[in-house]
């Protein structure tokens, strides 16, 4: 995989003093902040975010790319962070739910999710919102059916789907008008 090769290419000859044996140095920008990290090659982006950086907004619902709860934006594109090894992301820009907006300074999608009650337990929600942001940036979805289809990688066991579609459509329509 190109990702694995990338981490090798980026491995500088002399190992940095602080890099423990068996780890790889990576520089990743997360929510605008640069992180220089030394990581074992088997650490996923999701576990890096949740367990090492305490950015627990990205959720783990399966760890297998089957639920979408871990969706983040990598260089602007939505991805399941449980399927990405962190060492393959040297030089990438990552936006997690924490980077989209904060209480008191909500991203329009976050506000629309509250307004439309597009969640119940809230566990799939950060993934839904990041995915919706990715979907809007892709620019392929125009209709409700397209939104529903293209949001189907994000499961919601609480069944908030109709409200999720309402919230996303509201933002899509305001963006289109703008």
């Amino acid at each position, binding site marked *: 995989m190109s990702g694995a090769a990338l981490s090798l290419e980026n491995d500088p000859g002399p190992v940095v003093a602080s890099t423990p044996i068996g780890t790889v140095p990576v520089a990743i920008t997360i929510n605008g902040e640069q992180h220089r990290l030394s990581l074992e090659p088997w650490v996923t982006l999701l576990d890096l975010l949740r367990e090492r950086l*305490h950015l627990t907004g*990205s*959720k783990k619902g399966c760890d297998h790319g089957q639920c979408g*709860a871990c969706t983040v934006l990598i260089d602007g594109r939505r991805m399941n962070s449980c399927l990405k090894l962190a060492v393959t992301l040297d030089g990438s820009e990552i936006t997690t739910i924490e980077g989209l907006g904060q209480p008191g300074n*909500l991203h329009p999608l976050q506000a629309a999710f*509250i307004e439309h009650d597009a969640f119940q*337990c*809230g566990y799939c929600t950060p993934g839904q919102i990041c995915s919706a942001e990715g979907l809007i940036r892709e620019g392929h979805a125009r209709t409700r059916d397209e*939104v*529903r289809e293209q949001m189907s990688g994000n499961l919601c066991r609480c069944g908030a789907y109709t409200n999720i579609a309402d919230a996303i459509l509201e933002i899509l329509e305001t963006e289109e008008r703008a």
Partner: protein
Amino acid sequence: MPDTRHEPIRVGIGTPLDRVDGPDKVTGQAHYAAEYAVPNMLYGVIVSGRIARGRITGIDETAARAVPGVVEVLTHRNRPSTPWLDRNYKDELNIPGDPFRALESEHILFSGQPVALVLAETFEAARFAASLVDVSYEAAAHNIDFEASLAERFLPSKKRNSYHPPKNHGDADAAFAAAELKHEARYHLATEHHNPMEMHATTVDWHGDGTLTVYDKNQGSQGVQSYLCNIFGFSKKELRVVNAFVGGAFGSGLRPQYQVYLAVMAAKHTQRSVRVVMTRQQMFTHAHRPEADYTIRLGAEATGKLTSIDGDATTSTSRFENNMEDIVIWGMINYASPNMKGEYCVAPRDTYTSADMRAPGAATGMTLFEIAMDELAYKAKVDPLDFRLLNYSDIDAMYRTPFTSKALREAYRDGAAAFGWDSRSPEPRSMKEGRELIGWGMATGLWTAEFVKTSAKAKLTADGRLEITSATSDIGTGTGTVLVLVAADTLGLPPDRISVRIGDSDLPHSPVQGGSRAAASGGAAVQLACEAVGKRLLKAAEKVDGQPLHAARSIEDVIFADGRMILKSDPSKAVSCADAMQAAGLEVIEEEQTAQPGLADRISQMTRSRNVHSAVFAEVRVDEELGQIRVTRIVNAVAAGRIINPKTARSQILGGVVMGMGMALHEETLGDNRLGRWMNHNLAEYHIPVNADVHDIQVIFVDEPDPDVTPLGVKGVGEIGIVSTAAAIANAIFHATGQRHRSLPITIDKLIGT
């Protein structure tokens, strides 16, 4: 002084309110059980056993222990000792049998049973080492096949507390034999797993001073606290359980799950903080909705009027506990028939014990019964809705007691109108558009309305802020938001001045959250606590110069609005709460109250039935060649008494309907009996509805004032949405295709195989 002629804006019971925890949830600031940052913490990864029954003959931990960062491998051989008697392991649900104890002994009771817990400094080291634990087994004969287990079915002598035995009337056999119209068939529901999006997880914060905080995914912090204290010898002062945010549960968190037991055991053993998170695969090794077999026999006059109802059901359980559900009573409660009887058994298999899942019993029993009713309606050549009305019962037909309220007729009427039911063409296969057959079906939903002892505290500070606390949980139901609305309603405060804290065993007592009772019970407790605060405010108002409220004898004589007490008899007289507190020299008014059914309530509970009703209408479009079924429209009209928050209540129904769509078309845990294991134990192969599956759902709450059902007139909405949604869909599929499917889910293979 504010202008008293100005009509105050009242936000209270009945106002649609955004979730109070919404901003935290949409920004990732809400912390679920596995998301508390705890220093110096160990990661525990559970090793799942490979066989379904037998014993462990050996465990080789050498390779696992050699992984850098591994601290300990706990197995049945080296685990700390725990109490011997079963009663120490009983949880709030008190299921008859021997509660499962992880790492108890070499005996294996089900596939996926935890056989080791690997503890390491990082998650990755623990996960890798867990894959290296080498366990050998001696397998014994097992059975997880439900059909085969029916040969062993029995009625347990010790019943589960929540079980309601059917009450028989007349002679159902004779009436059936003599009936002009008869219908008899066997119905089936597959095993389903709850699969909340958050996996069961625990973070134990070992404080090092003999106390610990257990952040755990569950539906009742205090029940889990008692369970852990009983087993591990902590006092309730030492061990606190927090479930402030719960990523769904649907019943899987009613009982303490094995990861919390293992996490606390490991923390005590290593004297360190520990986090244990199940994998999605491990989410298939515990709670699940029982598989069900239900034979229904209905007799009727030629007109379609029922003369006999006879049900005989079996649900699956484990070999070590007898989980029981109410399956056969729902049809007997709902429909008038002079003769009725029911029988119920459990069938043991070598799996974990089945468990309550959203609307346990009714989601299975009422749903399957409503398919049978649809079949008889066709035999009687009566419209399915008219057929229900023909057999309508104004009283509880099984207990023969009146209801506190039953607005089911109104639900039928409003649901049918919204759906456009009267333009339905009665014949199956008679509606078509393009290559798709269209079918319209309907069904009746039924659930109970309960109210249980719950406490809450209200604390008003001089700055006009109110804090509500109760140990109750919010598993996505909107409990916290509902409590804020009740408080706003009682004390006339704007919601943004009210904060709520729930989900913590240190807070006032609350039972486990389940059965749609949290809003009615917690709401009643909050109302009492706020009324107690209101009484003290009124007393404090006596100290205000000129005593503007001296005419008020009790809080009944004033209106609380806009942070003020206004005299009902003369609205020009008012005192602000802040002024009253200041005049009386009060910084804080704090009151804790407990709402519980009194003697009169308990008598009334025996003489009057308390139920929630619904009418569900479904439209499906079926492409017969592809075997594709789309549920294009659902209308669910619900009679659930008073609705505290229409916004979150609607979402509860939407969620129940979506899960009902899963029950109808997707959800099925498939076992391979050669291995004794669930095979589709992941979210790619255990299908739940996705966004593309869900088209249009309309929720209607019909007006149903009922001051008697619970103190607030609330019946609860957590379960009713799922009940009979699958029946309406199955009935619509029959109407579309002429194919009658009696085994749920109705998957593509069933549709194109017939």
